[in-house]
């Protein structure tokens, strides 16, 4: 097991290097750089930068160096000093801008993931044990709908329904009057009344897919001889189903946790833009549109690092739950 995890962890290192380089390259792709964009913005406001000023700024930010040098400067600062660079647009260190938002993204994603699992596992198991029942058909339809409706559309529809039918104050995480208020019970309630839409949006897409996966896995496993053996031991249906095939069917499930993370982060980004949540999404979008390279790059880097780590965690979980891998 230790060998297996070490191997996986070692594999994660080149992935991380690659991912970080990609993050950096993406930001370097657009023709022109931040200074061009900054100058354009200033022009819009009626101010001008001279050629010399632009050149000086480029020099100051090291924008003229070869890309590998710039990359090395960027990544070594992150690794050794926790310095993600300077957001040129916000005129503030990137690290002061991102952590709070990343924390919120992580919190919402984790909450959605837990929610997804709580829905998907029992429903998938039940649908498989009662194959072709009304319940099974109902959730098959739900599964297809969840797959077909884009996250942002679902967010829009829920927002609209909440607004017109439930007269709720939607969008954001808190109503304006609570934003600077101290934490009270009412404020928590208010938070929850805002939080349900993103969580439902993110969990629906995930749950729809996972229910189908779980159902298919369960149907596969329930036909295997060891299930008959378990019945032949005198165990009741519930003991058999939850003790044996569910345990096995969960394994491919666990191995997809790592891949669920990228999907959740993706969903979170776009949902947050629609719902105007103070998570990474809107800031990342803004940064990309402004070509604020250090900010955007840091977001993409950190989200990717989270997913790499998530994949690693799911590998470890899988090894823990599946002896065939543990002792391979």
């Amino acid at each position, binding site marked *: 097991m230790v060998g297996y995890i070490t191997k996986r962890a070692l594999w994660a290192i080149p992935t991380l290097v690659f991912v970080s380089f990609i993050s950096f390259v993406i930001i370097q792709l*657009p023709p022109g750089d931040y200074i061009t964009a900054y100058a354009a913005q200033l022009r819009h406001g009626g101010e001008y930068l001279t050629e010399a000023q632009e050149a000086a700024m480029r020099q100051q930010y090291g924008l003229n160096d070869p890309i590998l040098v710039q990359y090395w400067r960027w990544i070594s600062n992150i690794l050794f000093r926790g310095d993600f660079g300077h957001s040129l647009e916000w005129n503030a260190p990137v690290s002061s801008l991102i952590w709070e938002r990343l924390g919120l993204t992580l919190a919402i994603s984790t909450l959605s993931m837990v929610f997804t699992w709580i829905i998907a596992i029992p429903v998938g198991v039940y649908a498989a044990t009662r194959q072709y029942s009304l319940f099974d058909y109902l959730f098959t339809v739900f599964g297809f709908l969840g797959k*077909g409706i*884009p996250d942002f559309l679902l967010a829009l529809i829920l927002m609209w329904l909440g607004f017109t039918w439930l007269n709720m104050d939607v969008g954001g995480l808190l109503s304006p009057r609570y934003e600077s208020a101290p934490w009270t019970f009412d404020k928590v309630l208010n938070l929850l009344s805002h939080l349900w839409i993103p969580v439902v949006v993110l969990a629906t897409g995930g749950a729809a897919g996972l229910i189908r996966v779980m159902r298919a896995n369960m149907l596969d496993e329930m036909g295997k001889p060891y299930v008959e053996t378990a019945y032949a031991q005198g165990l009741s249906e519930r003991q058999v189903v939850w003790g044996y095939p569910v345990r096995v069917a969960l394994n491919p499930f666990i191995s997809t946790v790592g891949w669920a993370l990228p999907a959740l982060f993706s969903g979170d*980004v776009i949902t947050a833009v629609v719902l105007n949540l103070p998570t990474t999404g809107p800031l990342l979008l803004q940064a990309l549109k402004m070509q604020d390279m250090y900010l*955007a790059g840091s977001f993409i880097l950190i989200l990717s690092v989270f997913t790499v780590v998530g994949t690693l965690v799911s590998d470890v979980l899988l090894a823990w739950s599946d002896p065939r891998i543990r002792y391979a």
Partner: protein
Amino acid sequence: MAIETLEAPATEAAPGREEQLYTAKPWTLIWWRFRQHRLAVASLVFLVLLCVAAIFADFISPYTPSSIDRLNTFSPPRAVHLFHEGAFKGPFVYALKRTRDPETARVTYEADREEILPIRLFVHGEPYRFLGLVPTDLHLFGVDHRRQRINLLGTDSLGRDLFTRLLYGARVTLSAGLVGVAFSFVIGLALGAVSGYYGGWLDAGIQRLMEFIRSIPTIPLWMGLAAALPIAWDPLFVYVLITIILSLIGWTHLARVVRGRFFSLKTEDYVLAARLAGASEYRVITKHMLPAMTSYIIAAMTLAVPEMILGETALSFLGLGLRPPVVSWGVLLQEAQNLRTISLAPWLLAPGAAVVLVVLSFNFMGDGLRDAADPYGR
């Protein structure tokens, strides 16, 4: 138990049909199995109709996508009626009366139950070039009135007809999906085939690459790449680049399917036999292995189209993909971005409904194809 697994091959086993079954060509078998999937067949019909509508969008739609009507902004969808006061009048719509609320200054529309506008076929309207070639002004249907218009799905903030724009958007969105899949098909097939056929370190390397790509959250990555495209570029060029960006990430799934098939086919006896008979590697791959997996590839491609469409829609919706004046469903949905507009004009979500329908149809069709792909399997 032998008895339980014994399965007679045809379901509607008429005696003559069984004979046919043994002699049928693989594609006939696939088609037979596909036909049993009613939802998949319905999806296929729907998608074919939609594609035809998209190709002839300029003729079918009553207006052109950019024709603005300032006196007809945010007008609601018009219901098509057949009976007026109990009398059959053929298909018609009621005229729309525009009133302004004196207090809020908001424009409201109301159907004028007095004036009926019969729907005419082949009316002369705004000029356009049919399929971009033949100049004409003939439209499939419309109403004959100087002021009034027929807006089956309502209008947007500039009074443009949403039905027209939806049809024109279908061209861009559907073709982006198909072109994107074509790109990822080329990449996926090439890398998947190499990976599956040669195995070894090449396979390991390609597998790694696929893992890298899958471990990056797609939307931020797409956003990052799409944001790199300059706003000033030609919309058509941006469109091609966006589809390439989508396929740069979307090919991994296809490659996995191809690789898996190659791995299982490689060990088949008939492939070994071909190799022993001295067939070249190129011949073994193209003549012996590829035909055995075409149906799988088609199924996988069908399932990949909705991913592309969702990707295009999401990017355009965020303002990072296609931009006006290009009309795509994602671009149309940009209008429905804020709550105020949606509550004022919920019909602006119609392109969203279209996306859902198309994505579901492709999924159903792909599922049907995947089941039918192995005509000798269960």
